């Protein structure tokens, strides 16, 4: 194997990895700001992609307005979901396990909703980043990879700043930790949680819109990506946005190299073995999540 092939492999892995990073950011956001691990993030992503398909692909509304419309619709959906579903459950102090399972049930629901509305034929629409492969020396790169890397990095910086640097972001994290206390600080818990969901479904929309020209839309497409994204989140460090990005890339590169050099059939086995090794030897992930339990 030449150095060039290796670099090409790494580049291909990176291309896949940033795709995992997008939903990973959404999962991290919800985790930070509501203490929930959202197993439906992947399916929300799919939904975003399908909405774009209908609005941009079928209704022929121009790209940017269509993109914005999808983000708005999805944000609204997140708001509604939090208001009629998650906030009431959180408020009643429902066992977190039940809420976790609620997100799993939600994922099944969305997937079947998509199936009923759009059917299961793989679908796609034109790639806004263009589809001419770029050649850099001996290496080839699709332009969307660069686009996604830029958007993911921007999102990451924004989220990082928003959650750590602003009062609202701090308030969101506070709500995730203790709702009685946050009420007493004058925080509207319901609004904060709605905002959390709104943001994370908006991120799902962004992910879906960016990914679906590259990966054909099928009802289960997001679920498959989400499993990898979840692994990425854990490997990167649950709660860390940088971790989500880096974790996604680690997963993408590692599995691409393994698949090419060893055996593609066992690619996912490899990914999960890496995950388990990480969990056992570095449970906090690369960007070790701070562990706050004290006895």
């Amino acid at each position: 194997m030449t150095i060039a092939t290796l670099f090409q492999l790494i580049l291909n892995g990176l291309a896949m990895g940033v795709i995992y990073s997008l939903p990973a950011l959404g999962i991290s956001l919800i985790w930070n700001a509501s203490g929930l691990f959202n197993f439906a993030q992947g399916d929300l992503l799919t939904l975003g992609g399908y909405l774009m398909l209908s609005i941009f692909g079928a209704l022929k509304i121009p790209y940017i307005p269509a993109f914005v419309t999808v983000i708005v619709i999805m944000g609204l959906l997140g708001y509604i979901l939090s208001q009629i579903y998650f906030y009431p459950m959180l408020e009643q102090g429902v066992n977190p396990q039940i809420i976790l399972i609620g997100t799993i049930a939600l994922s099944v629901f969305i997937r079947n909703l998509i199936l009923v509305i759009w059917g299961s034929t793989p679908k796609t629409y034109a790639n806004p980043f263009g589809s001419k492969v770029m050649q850099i020396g001996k290496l080839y790169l699709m332009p969307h990879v660069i686009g996604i890397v830029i958007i993911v990095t921007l999102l990451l910086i924004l989220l990082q700043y928003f959650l750590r640097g602003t009062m609202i972001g701090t308030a969101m994290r506070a709500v995730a930790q203790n709702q009685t206390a946050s009420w007493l600080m004058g925080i509207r818990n319901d609004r904060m949680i709605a905002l959390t969901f709104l943001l994370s479904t908006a991120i799902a929309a962004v992910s879906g819109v960016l990914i679906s020209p590259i990966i054909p839309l099928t009802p289960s497409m997001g679920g498959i990506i989400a499993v990898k994204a979840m692994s990425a989140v854990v490997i990167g460090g649950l709660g860390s946005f940088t971790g989500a990005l880096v974790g996604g890339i680690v997963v993408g590169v590692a599995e691409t190299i393994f698949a090419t050099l060893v055996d593609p059939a066992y690619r996912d086995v490899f990914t999960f073995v890496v995950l388990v090794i990480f969990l056992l030897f570095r449970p906090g992930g690369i960007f070790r999540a701070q562990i706050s339990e004290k006895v």
Partner: protein
Amino acid sequence: MSKLIELLRKHVLLVIGIILLIAPHITSQYEFYVVQRGVQNAIHVVGLLILTGYGGMLSMGSAALLAVGAYAYGILLVKFGLSPWLGMILATALTTIIGTGLAFPSFKLSGPFLVITTIGFGEIVRILLLNLEPITGGAYGLSGFAKLFPNVQWVYYFMVITLIFVIIGTERIGRSRLGLALKAIRQDEVVAESMGIDVRRAKLVAFSLSAMLAGLSGVFLANLTGYMSPDSFTSAESTTYLLMVVMGGMQSVIGTVISAIILTGLPEVLRFLSSSRLLVYSLILLIYLRLNWVKSDNAFLKLLKSITKRFGMYTSSTEPGNRS
């Protein structure tokens, strides 16, 4: 009316037993098959109750353990020519060993971390089943193995009897020190270990008990379908099993059994909805979870609890209800 309920309450096992025993005679062949699947699922899900309900460890790998049980049985019979009974015992034992291995990540991980690990385990098993084609038959599956009894009804009766034993046994475990230890681990692991609970051992036992029941249930599944392929053991199936535990109330064995049987039948009942079937199914689950019927003081669960009380081993000498 209340007397009747009281009577039913006292003999709930008997009632369930009788219903299940006469089921083959009052159902069509197709309905009977659904009942059989219900009983088989119930055996599996009761194991998951020990792990998830009592111990609070969410597992999305249970379908994979079911697969291990079913495949081990099939392979032992087809490739090694073992007798069905020996196959059943060895398959269950093998599943137990593999499932016990899953306990090790649980020593360090909980909540979503454990869920993701178990999803990973499930995927690994599925991929292996797909790719180890010479042994497993790959994507086209495995068939052609003998059943425990030549007659389907006998397999069914054997399952029902097994289920009843499993119910009684699990109920007793729930009330024993092990059950209490698991409940303590779920609520506060630090307290549990400080009070002299060997947390790792309890987790190991919980994982192995649930794996054992999954394995056994897998053997029964193989007996029911006579065929298996990897697509029947995806994480989507694991979700369904988890939901069965949740809808059963997370604490009650009888509740879990009833919910397993109902949730097995529900998609069949909804079959007339055609392609929106699963949509309606998941909507029902969402509403159920949202209404928080799982929380411990809902009327249905109270009834279930009072039903299961009579298996109780540890009760205080003070009778409940004689204080204001």
